[in-house]
């Protein structure tokens, strides 16, 4: 059996350049920009209309945030409860500190079943730990079965969106890759395939069906893990998840420890918040819930790997821990004006967009160029906070993370400039002196249009500079009203 083209164009996100550099390339990709603009605006409008029809939306957001906070504030207790309930239900619980541990557990289970392939339900956690690559190294093919993940896999590409990972591709590109690649890994696409969405879906369905029916092991994540009942929940739209979660004999679920919810009742707000926020649907088409093993029904061996991989580090930060509420709906991506223009790859992670700009430096630390640049990849416009169904204050977290980066001394010139600005602004006399530079320039330049200022190329490459005035406001006030502050009088004497 051939192995899927696991991200052959760019094996991983490791060594990604800083965001502005990656964004430069993304901005020049006009096809991608058109695709992104259309897709984000479509989902944005759908979400806005289904959210608007829920009068208690704000109360739901609070309920969702509260349920997650309750779980996070007592995470140890709820995880132990989850382990107990899962075990009582016949599941096997594994704990993984990091990606390596989690990958090793999955590979060991797959090997013990003597399989050379697994089918996969779309899962952010397994992408985060690069499970497909680990399986490939062990000689095991991992077949993505979500349509968009299949597209990404056939391209040998990386996902660029949490929910719609092939958002940067259009249907003509998809038809071409189906014709080119599907036959390499299984049932080929029909030769007369068009870019009609129904035809594309049919080709994918036929290609995937033989994999569903053959696979003996499936790998999934989980949207929620209910502590009191020991239930895992997967929410999806295509039915591929249902196939993977019910047909194979063995099911392995990799679940981030922040996915735990205290009680069954906590699902109620979540199942209203998630579909409306993510796909802009009132209810998602397939919600699969399983509580361990049931004889003669579904997988007879159920493994749950509870994954930390940096999450307990995020939990330790009193302000930052709210990012762990994230339910991966991607509403923040769809409303983000930065994401809309750069796409997901520029964020250097499977978590792109505003939540990625927060979560990646939180989970991975701020040692790399890309992780240092991510907190600045935002205009702090606040659209993400408004859209977030669990009220993660992303702008606030970005500002906090900027503080972390600045403390590392990452930008020496900037640090000096901020120090100087603070020194000037902490005293009105110093400010008045500094303002003389502006008014002098204003008098010299008159009404001339300013298109170039040495050292300000980042601004002036595409924008004119406002003409400085000949008199500041405080000079005008002092002249008109004859008022000066005590400190200024001193200076003027």
């Amino acid at each position, binding site marked *: 059996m051939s192995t899927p083209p696991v991200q052959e164009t760019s094996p991983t996100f490791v060594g990604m350049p800083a965001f*502005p550099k990656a964004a430069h390339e993304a901005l020049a990709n006009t096809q991608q920009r058109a695709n992104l603009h259309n897709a984000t605006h479509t989902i944005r409008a759908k979400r806005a209309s289904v959210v608007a029809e829920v009068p208690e939306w704000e109360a739901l957001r609070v309920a969702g945030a509260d349920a997650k906070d309750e779980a996070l504030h007592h995470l140890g207790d709820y995880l132990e409860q989850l382990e107990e309930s899962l075990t009582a239900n016949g599941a096997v619980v594994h704990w993984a500190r990091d990606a390596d541990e989690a990958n090793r557990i999955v590979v060991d289970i797959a090997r013990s079943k003597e399989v050379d392939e697994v089918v996969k339900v779309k899962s952010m956690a397994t992408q985060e730990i690069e499970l497909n690559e680990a399986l490939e190294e062990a000689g095991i093919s991992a077949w993505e079965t979500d349509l968009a993940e299949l597209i990404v896999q056939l391209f040998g590409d990386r996902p660029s969106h949490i929910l719609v990972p092939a958002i940067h591709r259009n249907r003509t590109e998809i038809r071409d890759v189906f014709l080119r690649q599907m036959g390499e890994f299984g049932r080929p696409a029909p030769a007369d395939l068009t870019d009609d969405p129904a035809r594309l879906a049919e080709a994918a369905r036929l290609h995937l069906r033989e994999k569903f029916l053959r696979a003996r092991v499936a790998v999934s994540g989980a949207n929620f893990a209910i502590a009191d009942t020991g239930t895992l929940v997967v929410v999806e739209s295509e039915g591929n998840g249902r196939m993977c979660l019910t047909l194979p004999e063995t099911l392995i679920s990799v679940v981030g420890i922040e996915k735990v919810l205290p009680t069954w009742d906590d699902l109620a707000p979540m199942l209203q918040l998630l579909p409306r926020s993510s796909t802009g649907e009132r209810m998602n088409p397939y919600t699969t819930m399983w509580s361990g093993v049931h004889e003669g029904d579904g997988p007879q061996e159920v493994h749950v790997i509870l994954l930390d991989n940096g999450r307990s580090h995020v939990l330790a930060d009193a302000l930052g821990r709210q990012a762990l509420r994230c339910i991966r709906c991607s509403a923040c991506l769809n409303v983000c*004006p930065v994401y809309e*223009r750069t796409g997901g790859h520029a964020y250097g992670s499977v978590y792109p967009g505003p939540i990625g700009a927060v979560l990646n430096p939180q989970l991975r630390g701020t040692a790399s160029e890309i992780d240092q640049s991510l907190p600045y990849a935002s205009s702090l416009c606040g659209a993400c*906070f408004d859209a977030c169904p669990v009220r993660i204050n992303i702008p606030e977290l970005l500002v906090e993370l900027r503080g972390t980066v600045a403390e590392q001394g990452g930008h020496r010139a900037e640090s000096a400039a901020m120090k100087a600005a603070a020194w000037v602004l*902490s005293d009105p006399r110093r*400010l008045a002196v500094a303002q003389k530079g502006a008014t002098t320039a204003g008098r010299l330049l008159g009404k001339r249009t300013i298109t170039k200022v040495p050292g300000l190329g980042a601004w002036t490459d595409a924008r004119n500079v406002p003409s400085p005035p000949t008199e*500041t406001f405080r000079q005008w006030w002092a002249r008109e009203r004859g008022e000066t502050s005590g400190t200024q009088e001193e200076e003027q004497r």
Partner: protein
Amino acid sequence: MTATKPPVTDLRVALFATCFNDTMWPETPRATVRLLERLGVTVEFPMDQTCCGQMMTNTGYAGKAVPLVRRFVDVFAGYDAVVAPSGSCVGSVREQHPMIAHLAGDPGLASQVEQVRPRVYELSEFLVDVLGVTDVGASFPHRVTYHPTCHSLRMLRVGDKPLQLLRAVRGIDLVELEGAEECCGFGGTFAVKNAEVSVAMGTDKARHVTDTGAEVLVAGDNSCLAHIGGILGRQHSGIRRMHLAEILASTEEDPA
């Protein structure tokens, strides 16, 4: 309520000009003074004011903003209302100063911040919420489009207050801006740290502005206006940018 019957307020009102306006756009705080005095408000300008510290805070140097927050609460402690012609700076005062005081580990400063910050208003909030006026007696017979800036919209939630004020202006032809609520791409140091994305966002905003056929682009923040206006200027669009205060200060006798 109309301008012929000026609202009487016995509030002690201070103008917070903001450092950018003071230095680069003095016509805006001047218009604010003219407008408020026309409405019967006595405005004081405490000369010891400087800056809210937003630039330091948002760039990751919140520690450097501590002395600025101290100065802010000292300078404005005695006032019933502090008015600023900037949604962004008021947003910083109201939403970020508590965090900076907390960072400073100074409970005294934190309680001073709690005293002062609820009394700090963006101009349209002060006019509509405090003075209870939407018709300020202004006249501006031009085609105008309004860009709601992100911090006034999503931090302060000024809603349609600026539009209520603009709709009451004599002679104005107020045209809707497509994608009005989308960020213009300024974002403080974002404009230079991520200049290309910033310009891509600003170019789309400028295109929407141009499409309205407006002569004048108005907003409540000169920083965003400098960015969009800088792009419009580079395009030689001929569209003038004005702060909300300047349009509201404009009258038939003294047109802007």
